[in-house]
């Protein structure tokens, strides 16, 4: 069950996934902090196997949006439906069990554990292991999942390295590997290339391209190259509302989007 080698996920603009029912859907999603509307009646959908970027200038509501989807923040209005089920207001551990995984902007790994152990802990979370006495090595399926995830992010060769000893780029990829080990249906990546050099960004871009084959992915990113090259569609947020949605080409050609970014 090892992850397949890189397979072409289809060109970004082919509108793939438009016909199946949406994996994730929000209806009139709102978040108010006192008098401030961080999100304002957002109607958002993403189809299965789609790679969607969520972009927007500072304060647009991208983090708030992610926090709602992953149960970190409770919306003040509206609904979130995931794979046919309503998940509005559920706590983050339950949402994780439903199949939404998230990587964070600030690296969230366990520095004193090995790369393998970091991922295995996540793989274990999917099964309720009431068996506390068997050695962890005896759970074959968990080990397989762990190796598959490590292979997918290119860290299988460093499985026994201490996570603290990895380079920054490798740590960010480990973070993605941890999310993958939970075998999610939806992977939310929060600024996966933050703080990376151009070379590391290129590697992570390829990594995401590889794993996008069997996964629905939402990415918040500021690096426009990554966004344009990886994503099927882009959603632009501005002041808590959706300003525009479309293929990368459509968004680039949209004068209103340019205005908002350049503050003209």
């Amino acid at each position, binding site marked *: 069950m090892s992850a397949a080698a890189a397979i072409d996920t289809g060109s970004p603009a082919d509108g793939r996934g438009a016909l199946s029912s949406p994996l994730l859907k929000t209806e009139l999603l709102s978040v108010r902090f006192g008098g401030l509307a961080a999100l304002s009646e957002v109607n958002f959908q993403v189809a299965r196997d789609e790679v969607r970027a969520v*972009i927007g*200038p*500072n*304060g647009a509501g991208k983090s708030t949006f992610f926090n709602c989807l992953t149960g970190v923040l409770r919306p003040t209005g509206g609904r979130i439906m995931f794979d046919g089920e309503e998940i509005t207001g559920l706590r983050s551990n339950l949402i994780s069990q439903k199949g939404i995984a998230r990587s964070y902007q600030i*690296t969230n790994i366990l520095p004193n554990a090995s790369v393998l152990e970091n991922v295995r802990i996540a793989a274990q979370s999917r099964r309720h292991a009431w068996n506390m006495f068997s050695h962890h090595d005896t759970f074959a399926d968990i080990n397989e999942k762990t190796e598959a995830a490590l292979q997918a992010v290119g860290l299988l060769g460093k499985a026994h390295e201490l996570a603290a000893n990895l*380079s*920054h780029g490798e*740590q960010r990829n480990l973070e993605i590997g941890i999310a993958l080990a939970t075998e999610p249906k939806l992977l939310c990546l929060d*600024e996966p290339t*933050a*703080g*990376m*050099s*151009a070379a590391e*960004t290129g590697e992570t871009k390829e990594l995401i391209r590889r794993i996008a084959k069997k996964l629905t992915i939402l990415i918040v990113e*500021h*690096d*426009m190259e990554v966004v344009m090259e990886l994503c099927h569609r882009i959603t*632009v947020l501005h002041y808590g509302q959706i300003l525009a949605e479309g293929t990368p080409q459509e*968004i*680039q050609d*949209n004068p209103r*989007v*340019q205005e908002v*970014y*350049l*503050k*003209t």
Partner: protein
Amino acid sequence: MSTANGDAAAESATPLVRVDDVHTYYGKSHILHGVSLTVGRGEVVGLLGRNGVGKSTTLKTIMGLVQPSRGTVAFGGNAITGLPPHKLARMGIGYVPEDRRIFRLLTVMENLRTGLDRAGVGEDKRKALLDKVFAYFPVLAERRSQAGGTLSGGEQQMLAIARAMMLEPRIILLDEPTEGLMPRMVSQIGQIIEALHDEGIAILLVEQNVPLTLQASKRVYIMEKGLVRHHCAASEIDVNDAVIKQYLGV
């Protein structure tokens, strides 16, 4: 990457601030990959770039709030890399951070005093500085006994700039002054920058608002992923140029 043809004097004299091949890390995160830039005496220089490219980190490195692991920063020809921030403030570098960071529990007057109460400022100078700043920002005079935290966003931005002016700086590092402000305040910020420039204060302006930056600056640097990617006179480009679209647009 030639500098502007404008002021020959500014070109040949030692720049007021020189950042040379600076690498800065936050823990393991390599934010600045070798940034180099200069600001001439009395010059307004813009620093543009998307979120996360390292603009604020560049300002923080100049201000000594983070130490570079490689490279040097010089002020008025003297190396200042590694000096603590309070020394740099005394030497004449003013800092206006991205989230303003005024002292919320201190009054407006006390906020100003943090910069005003220093050696070498006699009664006359004190009065002159306060008068100047209240002329720039009359609303601060009105609210001088109010706690900083009760001011509106725009007023806090003015207080943050006024506070830096109390240091009689030779350069002010301005980090995204228009962020979160209403559109009509943006032109006010432009006027303030011009007024500061008229007094001979140099400004390193970090911004994402392209029209404001191009209008206010003499030269601009554009950063991407921790490096300076483009450098030219502000007059040489405008907001519709391909280079702006590439590094700042979508």
